[in-house]
């Protein structure tokens, strides 16, 4: 009779519903934790990938020697000392070197201090949005598209004089909540928003503020010489890895040189994988919690119905029959909870204010692991239950 286990579940529906909900919540949390990490990984890659797309032929990122890149440590570098590298074989002739500042800042916006990433670059070089990215006239396939409004005006970078005031203009991401024409304050200086980007955020949802190199130097670095990164565009047909090695050997000042792929790995290691170890550990703990719930509920439920099990055994049920009966309930409860949890996780990604990416393959993997480990837990509990002495049918206890 196939429906015995379903009728038993219906008889104990309150407990079954609570168990299913518990499993669903645990699966939801496991997937959301993973989804949040996936979102962080995507955001960690996004900026470097846009710059790589801008370059088209690959990039090498230079920083102070020993810094491990400006994404990992403290880097200050004078781009003028590196000008000699433009003649190195493998360096693109049109846009050989691009000075860049990529730094965490705390702008004051509408009286409140917020976290943001300042990305300062030269508009005629690599590093941030250009005219091509403007929503009104630009190309939707360009790397920093879309930018509404305008891109900031450029400074006279090459022949800078103290009298040349850097343009107090920025392109801010819409996550900062500023409208075009509004201002933000950075190191006591007011900067006007002339354009807005969409979803240009770093790993922990820090919105990006794009500005001219000189503007960043005069606000957050307080100097006119240094940047923290110099981007080298790789010439067509050359390898970024080879060029990075060549630069390290031929640079007039000692530098760290990383390819775009290496920079992505550095960002992932420093901003996602290392800090998120505790989250991974919590995910494993949640799986343990799921198993414990199933084992405890199965054990308590089967102990409650030990007389029924004893009667079944007394009238001829084998241990295998009893285990199979209980296991069907465990698998049904777990599977229902897992499916519910997966559905809730996908719904949560739509309504979440932060970027959460739950992939179908990860959801399937989490579902399979949860069902397998919970079923195993249920199997252990079911075997304990199957050890019930059929004499209980006579004694009633």
């Amino acid at each position: 009779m196939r429906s015995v286990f379903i009728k038993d579940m219906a008889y104990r529906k309150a407990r079954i519903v609570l168990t299913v909900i518990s499993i669903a919540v645990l699966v939801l949390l496991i997937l959301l934790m993973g989804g949040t990490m996936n979102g962080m990984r995507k955001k960690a890659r996004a900026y470097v990938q846009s710059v790589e797309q801008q370059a088209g032929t690959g990039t090498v990122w230079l920083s102070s020697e020993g810094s491990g890149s400006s994404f990992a440590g403290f880097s200050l570098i004078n781009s003028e000392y590196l000008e000699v590298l433009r003649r190195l074989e493998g360096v693109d002739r049109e846009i050989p070197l691009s000075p860049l500042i990529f730094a965490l800042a705390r702008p004051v916006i509408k009286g409140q201090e917020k976290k943001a990433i300042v990305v300062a670059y030269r508009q005629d070089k690599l590093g941030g949005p250009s005219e091509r990215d403007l929503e009104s006239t630009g190309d939707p396939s360009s790397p920093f598209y879309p930018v509404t409004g305008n891109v900031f005006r450029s400074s006279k970078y090459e022949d800078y004089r103290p009298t040349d005031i850097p343009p107090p203009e920025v392109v801010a991401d819409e996550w900062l909540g500023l409208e075009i024409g509004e201002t933000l304050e950075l190191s006591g200086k007011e900067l006007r928003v002339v354009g807005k980007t969409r979803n240009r955020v770093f790993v922990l949802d820090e919105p990006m503020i794009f500005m001219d190199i000189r503007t960043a130097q005069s606000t957050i670095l307080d100097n006119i010489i240094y940047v923290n990164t110099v981007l080298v565009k790789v010439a067509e047909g050359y390898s970024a890895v080879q060029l990075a090695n060549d630069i390290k050997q031929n640079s007039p000042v000692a530098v760290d040189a990383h390819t775009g792929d290496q920079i992505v790995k550095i960002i992932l290691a420093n901003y996602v994988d290392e800090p998120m170890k505790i989250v991974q550990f919590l995910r494993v703990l949640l799986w343990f919690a799921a198993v414990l719930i199933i084992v405890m509920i199965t054990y308590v439920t089967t102990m409650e119905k030990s007389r029924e099990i004893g009667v079944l055994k007394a009238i001829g049920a084998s241990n295998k029959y009893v285990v199979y009966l209980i296991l069907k309930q465990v698998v049904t409860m777990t599977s229902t909870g897992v499916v519910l949890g997966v559905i809730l996780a996908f719904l949560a990604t739509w309504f979440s204010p932060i970027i959460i990416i739950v992939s179908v393959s990860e959801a399937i993997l989490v579902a399979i692991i949860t069902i397998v480990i919970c079923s195993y837990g249920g199997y252990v509990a079911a075997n304990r239950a199957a050890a019930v002495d059929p004499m209980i049918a006579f004694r009633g206890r």
Partner: protein
Amino acid sequence: MNGLVESRNLTKQFGEGHEAVVAVNDVNMSINQGELLVIMGESGSGKTTLISILGCILQPTSGSLIIDGSEVDYESQDLSEIRRKKVGFVFQLFNLIPYLTALENVMVAMDIGGIKGPEAEEKARELLTQVGLPDRLNHRPSQLSGGEQQRVSFARALANDPLIVFADEPTANLDSRNSASIMELIQSLCRERNIAFAVVTHDAHLRENADRIIEMEDGRVLDA
């Protein structure tokens, strides 16, 4: 002795040393096909333990048991298979599954015995009709009287066409009217189906109609 169920020097001891209790002590007896055997004795005399051993629920400490011509091998044989195929049980506390209807309670036993689907349902209907419950098929135990629940228990015990049914004080929780009707049911099932019944009871009516009565005292059978 050459019966359907035969015991040779069956002994069952619980515990060891000073705390040892010999519940069944050197019992030799047999039960024949179609026989209605009544087992009597004081509380604690070993009646329930004896039918538990004869029905292959309990393993004896020593001695041997022969069912349907084959000696039970406690080391290698699956006792649940013997219970499934050759033995039926009726308990004092009815022990029906509360969330199943009368029909389903009988069908569960058939499911265990390997009879499934429409065949099981048809047979369960026949058995419940035979025990006098043709109009209570879809009632749950909580909707049935004690006597009706015990009738369902008998139908369940007969589900897999056993050679013998062991009943442990089947009327202990019933009033006198229901007790009498259950005892009549046992007699009629025994005669009509030619099944052996071993019934632990104090019921005078059944005692009068039994083929044989055995008395137990301190684990021993006084008169087999």
